[in-house]
């Protein structure tokens, strides 16, 4: 099925046989035949069903929680509230994974005790014979609330005298960047442009709601099989309930979409408690409406840019204020704010810069990780501001960008020198060119073109001191196994490891088996988050495979009496490069190794570059391993009578360093185009006094097949990344510019910028009316 024939595909990869080619992913057949197993598909004898009672108040004291009626219901095995929990300080909600650095160790109560801080906070857990009984039991739990004043706006939360939800002042995190001489920069400016941009809550809306199964096995090990991005949550589960780490085993199944929503612990700790209390296997599959309450959506941001520019479009000074709504608990908000801070100037060099960013606690849903992790919100403001500057100066906005692009060797926001290629210009130029000619306006429609560039990190924050391990081995029959605890969340994480290993060992990738996602038996790999899975696990796997290759070739070199450099591997054969007729089958080569006592496997660890943090006063320091650059361009048609925006073309062009699987890379670009379109135009979690108004897929609208524009992915390969074969991370980067390009296209179409996402028909009509009235 994996024909390697198209010379057009991955033309940069002349010496590579598999890497870079659009091969069939190893996980494709099982998903298409319906045999792939997800956490909710698992069953065990005697398995109970769980259900969770979530608070329906945003800010209240829990006067009384009475579970006696629920416990008396036939078929109910156990009901747990905060009173039944071990005396831990809650469950860790800080940066998870395979990290050696210090984190902030933020925590959240496993179940609310005495007080609820957001509408949806979990209060009680039930395990029962079946789901219907569990649901019935939830309705029999009596709760007496005493409502408290709540805060539902981050600016209110930061105002003097506000009720305190978090710490001493509701400040979950704040950062400062002080660079250059801002006074001088503004003094040198010919114009000053100031605008405020806002973004909304966005829900991950993965198709598979949270699901997991937990049980205690015959070795008194607590097992959890879960839909998660993070195998290392076994540690947080163990710490939360007071078990040693080696008594909790977490295995991640195929994940039906994560997008960050399955990064911080969701349901695993609840199931662990129920399994321990009931001594039975317990499964929970969150109903969709409760899934909306169980992870954490994208943070709403308010972003003000005050930009000084010279008459020729050069930025002389930039002052940025960022405020995000963290909701009721910290979760990953401090880090997300940091990403937004570092991403606030986009892919531009700004020498005179002030940034003040703050994340404030409210009684809203706690927001958390979502593809882009703050960078894409910050980028929206930056790229909208580029258009406004260009409009003021009467310049082409691409020309303004060109005069300010950061280049390899320049220092970014935090003073980190960019080492890899920066192909922003090439990407944007190609994306825009691919939009082609504009269709002509009709009486009621206006056509617009928009572009946006970005800078998005891949890999973890350096002081997390990230690492990933992988094991590669060859069986006696010449077949190959990879072991890595990487989670496979749908982007081809496990398949990529097969493709890399196949390349190194000269074995077709579909003959490589990847055991993934098991915290007990596969070497720990860290999270599938932060666009790091391929970068980190790809490198570790390549290192392990390369060592195995070396071991195998050393045996063959002795056998043939040649040097290792004279040998190559392909089609499960080892052969002499200058005399390919002299070859040995991989399975025979393995026997040589076995006879000589040479390792046929290797365990490797890849360590990311580290740093010790940033200066708190200036924000200067090395924050990320590296960055990805690219652009997205959109063509839209705006109906000026109805305000409806239709995206006609959506083109992503990105320097991915090196594609590992070209088809998988294109799939990421295409998927991000539609997800970003949803963020730009229609998706919004609406909260009223903290209560979710759009908590289902019929109220929270994501784009459907009928909204799909012409989507195209343009893949450029600088081979300058830190990943295997020079790859850069792409999962988040390709998403970073999409919404901004659409917002800019709408502005181009109607001649007025809409600063508040999503760009709904109402906002378009309002903007058009305001434009008319100011004429």
């Amino acid at each position: 099925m994996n024909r390697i024939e198209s010379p057009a595909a991955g033309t940069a990869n002349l010496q590579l046989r598999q890497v870079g080619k659009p091969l069939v992913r190893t996980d494709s057949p099982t998903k298409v035949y319906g045999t792939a197993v997800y956490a909710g598909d698992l069953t065990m004898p005697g398995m109970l069903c769980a259900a969770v009672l979530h608070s329906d108040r945003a800010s209240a004291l829990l006067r009384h929680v009475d579970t006696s009626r629920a416990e008396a219901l036939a078929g109910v095995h156990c009901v747990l509230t905060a009173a039944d929990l071990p005396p831990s300080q809650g469950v860790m909600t800080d940066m998870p994974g395979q990290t050696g650095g210090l984190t902030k160790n933020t925590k959240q109560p496993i179940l609310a005790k005495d007080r609820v801080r957001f509408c949806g906070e979990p209060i009680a857990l039930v395990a029962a014979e079946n789901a219907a009984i569990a649901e019935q039991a939830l309705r029999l739990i009596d709760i007496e609330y005493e409502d408290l004043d709540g805060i539902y706006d981050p600016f209110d939360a930061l105002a003097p005298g506000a009720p305190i939800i978090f710490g001493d002042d509701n400040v979950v995190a704040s950062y400062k960047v002080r660079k250059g001489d801002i006074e001088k920069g503004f003094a040198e400016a010919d114009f000053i442009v100031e605008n405020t941009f806002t973004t909304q809550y966005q829900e991950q809306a993965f198709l598979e709601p949270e699901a997991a199964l937990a049980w205690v096995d015959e070795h008194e090990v607590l097992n959890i099989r879960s839909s998660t991005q993070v195998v290392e949550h076994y540690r947080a589960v163990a710490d939360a309930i007071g078990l040693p780490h080696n008594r909790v085993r977490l295995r991640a199944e195929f994940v039906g979409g994560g997008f960050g929503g399955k990064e911080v612990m969701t349901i695993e700790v609840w199931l662990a408690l129920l399994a321990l209390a009931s001594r039975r296997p317990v499964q929970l599959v969150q109903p969709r409406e409760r899934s909306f309450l169980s992870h954490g959506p994208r943070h709403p941001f308010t972003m003000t840019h005050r930009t000084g520019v010279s008459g020729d479009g050069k930025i002389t000074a930039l002052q940025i204020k960022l405020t995000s709504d963290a909701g009721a608990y910290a979760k990953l908000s401090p880090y997300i704010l940091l990403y937004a801070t570092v991403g606030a100037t986009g892919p531009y060099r700004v020498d005179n810069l002030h940034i003040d960013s703050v994340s404030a606690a409210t009684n809203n849903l706690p927001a958390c990780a979502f593809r882009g992790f703050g960078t894409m919100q910050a980028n929206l403001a930056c790229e909208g501001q580029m258009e406004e500057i260009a409009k003021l100066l009467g310049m082409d906005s691409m020309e303004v960008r060109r005069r300010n692009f950061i280049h390899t060797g320049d220092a970014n926001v935090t003073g980190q020198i960019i080492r890899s290629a920066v192909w922003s210009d090439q990407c944007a130029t190609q994306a825009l060119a691919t939009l082609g000619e504009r269709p002509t306006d009709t009486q009621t429609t206006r056509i617009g073109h928009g572009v946006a560039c970005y800078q998005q990190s891949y890999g973890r924050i350096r002081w997390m001191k990230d690492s990933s391990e992988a094991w590669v081995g060859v069986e006696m029959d010449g077949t190959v196994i990879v072991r890595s605890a990487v989670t496979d969340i749908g982007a081809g994480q496990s398949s990529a490891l097969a493709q890399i290993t196949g390349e190194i060992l000269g074995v077709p990738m579909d003959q490589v088996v990847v055991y993934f996602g098991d915290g007990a038996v596969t070497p720990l790999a860290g999270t599938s988050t932060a666009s790091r899975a391929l970068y980190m696990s790809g490198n570790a796997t390549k290192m392990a495979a390369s060592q195995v290759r070396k071991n195998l070739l050393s045996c063959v070199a002795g056998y043939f009496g040649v040097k290792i450099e004279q040998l190559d591997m392909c089609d499960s054969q080892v052969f002499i490069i200058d005399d390919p007729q002299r070859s040995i089958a991989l399975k025979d080569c393995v026997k040589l190794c076995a006879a000589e006592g040479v390792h046929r496997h290797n365990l490797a660890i890849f360590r990311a570059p580290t740093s010790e943090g940033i200066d708190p006063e200036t924000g200067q320091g090395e924050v990320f391993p590296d960055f990805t650059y690219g652009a997205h361009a959109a063509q839209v048609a705006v109906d000026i009578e109805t305000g409806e925006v239709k995206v006609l073309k959506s083109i992503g062009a990105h320097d991915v360093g090196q594609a590992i699987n070209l088809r998988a890379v294109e799939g990421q670009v295409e998927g991000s185009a539609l997800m970003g379109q949803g963020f730009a135009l229609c998706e919004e979690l609406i909260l009223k006094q903290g209560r979710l108004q759009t908590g289902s897929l019929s109220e929270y609208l994501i784009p459907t097949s009928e909204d799909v524009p012409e989507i195209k992915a343009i893949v450029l390969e600088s081979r300058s990344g830190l990943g295997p074969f020079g790859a850069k991370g792409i999962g988040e980067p390709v998403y970073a510019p999409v919404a901004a390009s659409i917002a800019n296209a709408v502005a181009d179409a109607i001649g007025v910028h809409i600063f508040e996402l999503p760009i709904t028909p109402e906002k378009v009509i309002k903007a058009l009316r305001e434009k008319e009235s100011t004429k």
Partner: protein
Amino acid sequence: MTDKETQMITEKRVDIQVNGQACEITVPAWRTLLEVLRELGHKEVKCGCEKGDCGACAVLLDGKVVDSCLTLAWNAAGRSVTTVQGLGGPDNAHPLQTAFIEHGSAQCGYCTPGMIMAAKALLDDIPEPSLKDIKRGLSGNLCRCTGYTRIFSAIQAAAETLRQQETTS
């Protein structure tokens, strides 16, 4: 009414053909086809919302595509259900499945079984669908990963394969 009479009204024995295999089950009136299929072991029928918003649970009922979460098991009595596993497997893949694999149309894969069944119903109705027909045919099936483009191209390729099979047979 006595308890016994109540039970007689709320539970019923129904015969359903699933992927050609006869299944006899006793179910109460309120249970959905989705729940029953999954209880029978057909875990390839996915649950995404339980209210007909997402299409992950789509199956064919007497050849027509339905959301099994909106179909009561009683209403499937005496009828034939086809899931993605009934459509084909590694040894007898349906052209739609082959095309989904070759085009890279599955990412996380959770929407894929329902998506393929919606596509099957579409091609049964319209053997030569336009892009617009395909978009309409899939409008009840959400996908969050792919942007749908590779799903569209797979369906177009499968339609072509099926037409060729038609002309050669």
